[in-house]
């Protein structure tokens, strides 16, 4: 099993969620995050003084999947989240040791 962590543009959340639902991914966790990569921040003005916002708002999606689904999920996220402009985000994939459903104590693939 793997954890797929995708950092995407906030306005792409719905598209990515719907695209994932269409390939039968029916669970995910999202959080609002701030960060920067190559996009860096941007300049804003407050009462006449310019300032740099270093951290750009992004949404982080976490999905736990079976190894066989990884490529599908990654392709789907890329297809839905891509704008082609800087700041589209990144996808990280981690090994996942165990999953437990709290309600039933099911473990492993059964709990996904």
């Amino acid at each position, binding site marked *: 099993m793997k954890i797929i962590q995708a950092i995407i543009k906030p306005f792409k959340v719905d598209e990515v969620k719907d695209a994932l639902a269409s390939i039968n991914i029916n669970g995910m966790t999202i959080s609002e995050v*701030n960060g920067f990569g190559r996009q860096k921040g941007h300049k804003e*003005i*407050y*009462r*006449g*003084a*310019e*300032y*740099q*916002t*270093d*951290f750009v708002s992004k949404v982080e999606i976490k999905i736990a999947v079976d190894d066989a689904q990884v490529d599908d999920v990654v392709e789907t996220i890329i297809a839905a989240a891509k704008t082609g402009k800087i700041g589209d985000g990144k996808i990280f994939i981690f090994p996942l040791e165990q999953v437990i459903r709290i309600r039933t104590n099911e473990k492993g693939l059964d709990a996904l």
Partner: protein
Amino acid sequence: MKKISIIIVYLLSSICLVWAGDDSPTVASNKTAIDLVQSHADYVWTLVAAMFVFFMQAGFAMVEAGFTRAKNAVNIMMKNLMDFSMGSIVFFAVGFGLMFGASKTGFFGTTGFFLSDFKVGGDPWILAFWMFQAVFAATAATIVSGAMAERTKFVGYLLYSVFITGLIYPVFGSWAWGSLLNGGGWLEGLGFIDFAGSTVVHSVGGWAALAGAMVLGPRLGKYTRDGRVKPILGHNIPLAAIGVFILWLGWFGFNPGSTTAASKDIAMIFVNTNLAAAAGAIMAMLVSWMKFGKPEVGMSLNGALAGLVGITAGCANVTPTSAIFIGAIAGIIVVFSVLFFDKIRIDDPVGAISVHGVCGAWGTLAAGIFNIGGTTFGILGVQLAGIFACFAWTFPVAYLLFKLIDITIGLRVSKEEELEGLDSTEHGGNAYPDFATINHGTMGEFGGPSGSKYEPSPSFASKKIVDPA
């Protein structure tokens, strides 16, 4: 049926009896009746206007809270609540007598303390007049709060608010407005024009704010060592905007209400007030657009207030077209003034010094320049004398007062308390317990999340009210 007709006959006959009892109207009795209606209308208008001016307290509180950080919002609400509450009591006890009591010298009144002009069963006009003047006094006091936001010790602020409504504001007020009741000031004797208080209220508040901001020094992290301005972002611009809208509304009581009479004059004063505010907002927006490349919201909001302050002196004696010019120029002045005070490192989070002090001075001069009856060097000279007298009285006295508070009980909170926020350190509260607040890039070199140069001192640890451990 029979009963009903009996009742109707009875009612009709009783009405006839009442008529028969009245003397037939005479010219004199008609005049008395008309005067009574006029006098009642004066009461109603003056007190309704007082309600509008009172509501400006909410406007000031929202502007100040919106332009500052979430960690100080409770403190700002407390300051705004208390400067009005304490100001009301102090103005009742001392301020009103100093401002409107009989004056031998022309420099302050000496009668009417504790509202002693009111006798039970006597003329209640004094009460209506007091109420209207009390909300004005509180306006002058609350202007200062914004310029001193986010770093002032609460006790120090309370003490200050006693002195501005009890001494600084009423003494200057007696010079310009004393004759509205029993007094008579030297400045109004010269023919000084300040209908609703560009100088009397706003410049007094603005110059006291300047003194306060100078004695306090800037907020931590506002100016970098290499001389750049590092903006400290306000936490809620919609709140600041609603504050400006409330103030704009309140000004429809502030200026037209200063007639303290229900008269036709209020129509032009209303229109002038509105046009000046609109022109001020537009010009501040345009100037910020040209200077910064974007129509900046903070400056535009300040521009509306600048226009309102600017028209306050001349609202009853300039034409609507002149009001547009006065407001427009105020809107330009306020942008450059805010930038100027930032340049000389006087930290004014809401722009109170520029809006009220500087634009109040401009409005007072403009009332002379655009005077409907024409202007002369004599009129302009008197206006300039009033502007100068206001600064010469308010700034040194307020500066001395703030210095004395600083030396005795302390005017500024400790560095640790300022970083932690006044809500928890001064009031043991939190304005937004259900919201997480993430600050990026506002603390910089002085510590906070990214700086990490700040180590809590032992004294701070013991002062901390909310301790999770």
